[in-house]
């Protein structure tokens, strides 16, 4: 569904990604793990077209999206839950959600909103509250809900467990699996490698801007090198 072919990305003179190739097939959960500064977020951003890849191709649904402006890319059935949640703190939960369905009709959006509220009952309780006044976990739920409002075929999640309590992390990962069961393809970037690999069908390990390993989730979990580097031995 999403194919990244030999992508190189530069920030000015500095090369952040070297020849990265990743494939995510329809209905999969694919995770990308790596240390700080490995280029995980850069890869996410490159898919979204900011910064744009200096060479290589990003193909979504058989269509090349490299070089398209971000706003175009994000309207084609791809949604991202950005790192650090980035909810609109001054807007209410409801308004946040409906920002996600900006390009859909009100009637369609209402149906999806109802579905999101079923998945996240907490958001229903907080429906007319300002997003900035909610806890980190609730904000993360809102960020995921907002991404779902566009009814995407694929969701990119950038570190959804960042700074959350373990019990909330568990809920978030449950939701991610639920989303996959509904047919949404998931590309998950995580530092929490243990959790991420457990729910992932396949995984990639990124180091210094290069993909160094690629295998099924289970295999990576038991891989000695991965255990040493990312799973605490």
């Amino acid at each position, binding site marked *: 569904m999403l194919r990244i072919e030999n992508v190189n990305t530069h920030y000015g003179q500095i090369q952040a990604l070297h020849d990265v190739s990743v494939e995510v097939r329809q209905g999969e959960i694919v995770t990308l793990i790596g240390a700080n500064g490995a280029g995980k977020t850069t890869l996410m951003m490159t898919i979204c077209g*900011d910064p744009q890849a200096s060479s290589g191709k990003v193909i979504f649904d058989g269509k090349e999206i490299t070089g398209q402006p971000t*706003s175009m890319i*994000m309207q084609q059935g791809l949604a991202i839950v950005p790192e650090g949640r980035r909810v609109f703190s*001054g*807007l*209410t939960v*409801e*308004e946040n959600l*409906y*920002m996600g369905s900006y390009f859909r009709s009100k009637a369609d959006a209402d149906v999806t909103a109802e579905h999101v509220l079923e998945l996240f009952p907490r958001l229903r309780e907080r429906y007319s509250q300002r997003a900035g006044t909610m806890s980190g976990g609730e904000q993360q739920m809102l960020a995921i809900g907002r991404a779902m409002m566009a009814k995407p075929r694929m969701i990119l999640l950038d570190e959804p467990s960042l700074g959350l309590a373990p019990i909330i992390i568990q809920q978030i990962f449950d939701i991610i699996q639920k989303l996959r069961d509904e047919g949404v393809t998931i590309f998950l970037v995580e530092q929490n490698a243990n959790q991420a690999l457990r729910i992932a069908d396949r995984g990639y390990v990124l180091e210094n801007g290069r993909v160094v390993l690629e295998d099924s989730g289970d295999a990576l979990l038991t891989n000695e090198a991965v255990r040493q580097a990312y799973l605490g031995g």
Partner: protein
Amino acid sequence: MSKIYNAIFAAGITFVLACLMIGVKLNTEGTTLTVSGASGEQWSWIVGGIVLVFLAQLFADRIDTLFGKLPKPKIGALLPAEEKRATLKPWLLAALIVGLLVWPFMVSRGAVDLATLTLIYIMLGLGLNIVVGLAGLLDLGFVAFYAVGAYTYALLSQYFGLSFWACLPIAAGLAATFGFILGFPVLRLRGDYLAIVTLGFGEIIRILLNNWTALTGGPNGISGIEKPTLFGLEFTRRAKEEGNVPFHEWMGIDYSSSYKVIFLYLIAVILMLFVVYVINRLTRMPIGRAWEALREDEIACRSLGLNRTIIKLSAFTLGASTAGFAGAFFAARQGFISPESFIFIESAIILAIVVLGGMGSQIGVILAAIVMTILPELAREFSEYRMLLFGLLMVVMMRWRPQGLVPMKRPHLELNQ
């Protein structure tokens, strides 16, 4: 210890400022300037003021707690409950509009004239509110669009003899075009940098108008701008055009110069209501929420596929067109415009209206516009200290209601349950 230091510092600043502004006077005697000191009475006022500032700073905490104990004026509490409000709202609105329309026939000419000016500032405040309050783009050169609107009408009327009503949409459109043109280069800027560029733009427009003497008349301005007509009826004693009948003859009543003032006021009311209605609708539409979302988080907006270029430009363009609207009316009311009317201080006053009213809140902006235009009129005797009073007002607001007079409330969407 730091409190005493603070208090001494504040008192010192007060002393320096008061000495310069009140303590010393420049008098012209013939061709020479002489400096004279203030009278004994003025000095005692200055000393009193310094002591007051010193004590206020020294006991700032205690004064704050005292004020904290006072019941805070909750404007929200004065309004009836949510459900009641929904049923009352159309009636209140209707009463307000009828009041606005009937009121000028009962008060003096001066009051009506002042109200007209207030309505102009309300329109300007509402326009800037889109740019600053909703989209969060600090614009210090808003007066430029006001000038564009005013000069559009003045020039079109002078050179081509177009009527006010024909020029109104043209003025709004041209101001919008200028907003669009300014919007493009500043899209990448934010905060301070945006403020500087817009400030520069405001000055460019003013200086251009001042120096393009061949077209705009330069500092002499344009005079004798046509007043608006009511379906062709003029409000002058005698019709300017051959074969035209002035309003009072057509109505069969005696001529009175206040008809014109009231007519201008009524036009202002209608324009203001139109602006309020349009902006109110816009803020409830997705584009209105997109402005706010862009203010909150640009990256998140882009991640949702929103095009920030279009959103920012639409805010700039709509805000500017509102100013153009107000400008055209201003030119028509005034009958004379010159670059003097569009100096930076006007931008500052409009911005003060938006900040004072509570960023993004329409009712707040309207209230603040009323306060900001009527207060200087009431405090006519203190006109020398006008800026000082504005400063004081700002400080009081900062301490008392930092979020503005009527902070923005989130318009709720109906949840279909």
